[in-house]
């Protein structure tokens, strides 16, 4: 299997889908001539022309809404929002329109569109450019939110998102674009709404998505080597719908869990997972479910402050060790 970057997997998949289906087209700021702020669409304008790869003005609400309208007529727009921070300008079109049109009109109209957008801090971009606000979308019935953490999933979930008949927010991550991994180019689309047990284990369950799923795998490997701990890692892959079953089944085997998330703690994705675990695995839990999340501040620019605010492999490892200690005290 070829080993390629997350970025390359995204680009190759967009290219293949443009070639496969004439109703697929791309829209976004600087995606054509400039080839994308993060070069995901490099070369696609040259290959497919302006009709299929459309540069837009800086008008998130306008072009996201236009994508919704085009999808209502049966096209399959894939829009790029430069970073998820700017999606807030399109919130009305995403939440009040894309998410509502199928249900509010009694199932008469589909909105088969994808919004690709990267989140993530750690690039010293300061408070307005470093947020993880995927929760805002994962909260909304009618939307689907997927978040790949590997190049293989970037491909499989993007295929699924483009071919899905609902609006899908496809969360990328600035810190993952250069990550490499094996990608099976003959594999089909992923099933949206399924988490993956990416590392089976018996002692504790680590749950994450996007960058923090990758960090969780790293921490599990380190704990295996350093502490002889066999951690299971679950990559959520889909934030809505949420695969509660896979999470609960794992924790019923391992009896404890730590959740890792790049968003803020209070009301965050981890809070929903923890609530799911207390309802679905209450009698199996040997320690309180811990959450490792971003410090609740607007993310600062200065490197030491930024580093302190963001969850890391170290902070996750610490919470895992503390949880295992708590389990040991109980048993």
């Amino acid at each position, binding site marked *: 299997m070829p080993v390629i970057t997350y970025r390359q997997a995204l680009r190759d998949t967009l290219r293949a889908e443009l070639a496969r289906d004439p109703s697929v087209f791309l829209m976004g700021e600087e995606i054509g001539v400039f080839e994308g702020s993060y070069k995901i669409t490099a070369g696609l304008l040259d290959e497919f022309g302006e*009709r299929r790869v459309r540069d837009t003005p800086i008008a998130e609400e306008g072009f996201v809404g236009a994508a919704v*309208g085009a999808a*209502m007529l049966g096209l399959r727009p894939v829009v790029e929002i430069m970073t998820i921070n700017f999606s807030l300008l399109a919130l009305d079109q995403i939440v009040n329109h894309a998410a509502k049109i199928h249900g509010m009109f009694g199932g008469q109209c589909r909105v088969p569109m994808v919004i690709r957008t990267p989140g993530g801090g750690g690039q010293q971009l300061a408070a307005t450019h470093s947020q993880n606000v995927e929760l805002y979308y994962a909260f909304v019935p009618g939307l689907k939110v997927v978040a790949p953490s590997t190049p293989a999933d970037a491909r499989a979930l993007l295929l699924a998102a483009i071919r899905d008949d609902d609006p899908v927010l496809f969360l990328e991550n600035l810190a993952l674009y250069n990550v490499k991994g094996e990608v099976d180019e003959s594999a089909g689309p992923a099933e949206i709404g399924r988490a993956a047990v990416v590392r089976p284990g018996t002692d504790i369950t680590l749950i994450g998505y996007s960058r923090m799923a990758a960090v969780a795998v790293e921490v599990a490997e380190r704990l295996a080597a350093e502490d002889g701990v066999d951690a299971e890692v679950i990559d959520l892959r889909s934030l809505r719908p949420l695969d509660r079953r896979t999470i609960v089944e794992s924790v019923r085997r391992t009896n404890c869990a730590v959740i890792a998330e790049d968003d803020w703690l209070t009301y965050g994705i981890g809070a929903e997972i923890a609530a799911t675990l207390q309802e679905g695995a209450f009698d199996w839990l040997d320690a309180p479910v811990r959450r490792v999340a971003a410090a609740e501040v607007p993310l600062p620019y200065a490197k030491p402050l930024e580093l302190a605010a963001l969850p890391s492999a170290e902070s996750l490892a610490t919470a895992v060790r503390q949880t295992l200690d708590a389990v040991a005290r109980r048993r």
Partner: protein
Amino acid sequence: MTRTTSRPRRRREQDPTPSGTEDPEVLLGHYRRMLLVRRFEERAGQEYTRARIGGYCHLNLGEEATVVGLMAALEPTDYVFTSYRDHGYALARGVDPGRVMAELFGRATGVSKGWGGSMHLFDVDTRLLGGYGIVGGQIPLATGAALAVAYRQGTEVVLCHMGDGATNIGAFHESLNLASLWRLPVVYVVVNNELGMGTPVERSSAEPELHRRAAAYRMTGERVDGNDVLAVRDAARRAVERARRGEPTLLETMSGRLRGHSVVDPARYRTPAERDRLAQADPVARLRGQLLAAGVLTEQAAEALDAEVGQVVEAATEFAEHSPHPEVDTLFDHTHATPVPGETRRLPADPLFPEDQ
């Protein structure tokens, strides 16, 4: 190249006969449709006060000539997006009045199966792609629909209806810019009824001649008397023709809002003089008078038409009343178009893991 046809805002005193060359059958058809909107809306208002209609209920009373004139300019294959003030547009587009009333009643037979209500009428067959309750929300959508038409090199046009208040929303400006930049087949229609709820246009828009806002996007802007069905229709036809050539238009129609913002609004902010002026400009009464004066309509025929339209509205209301409410077990039928594994069909007190109970 903004072309501004600044007409007097109201010109009801002039021309007793609407355009002498117009086919009497066509005139009668317009009048009948305006009357249908009038009687339907009056009935909707009554049913609302009887609590058989819930939520918000905004009527097209005073907007009838605009509604009918606009819809008359379209082909059946063209698309329509509207604001929440949408009942008349559905009727004039040819949607069965029973299905419209049933939607207001929240019944399963309604145009949106009881999911949308008054503000969210949708009909695939007539290509009415929705009334929208968020002010200005339909503008980017209509622009995108026009983009899809252009993408497929189709010949259809998209008509996007909105109120005067909607022209102050950011999405309006973003959309007009996109449409002009990309040469999209769309006609934006601003129904200027001089008020957004209780706020006059002059107090909300720095450029109160709203059609002039087209200039910022190098788009044709035109203002027309919204109480004159033929003037509206002809202006809309010109705009539609331009749209088919990839030239969007901002068309402003001037008419009055005969009642409050919605059925529950007593509109105390209006002066008696204003109310008088509005009644004088009533587009339905005006066309009736013109048709009688021109001999296109007799008193007898007018009464017969009244009775016939009254019957249609009565039948629509009966249909709505006798239609079933949606079944509660359909609550989760429209969450997703593409189903997902383990889809949650959880009612408020249901456990997350019912199989473990």
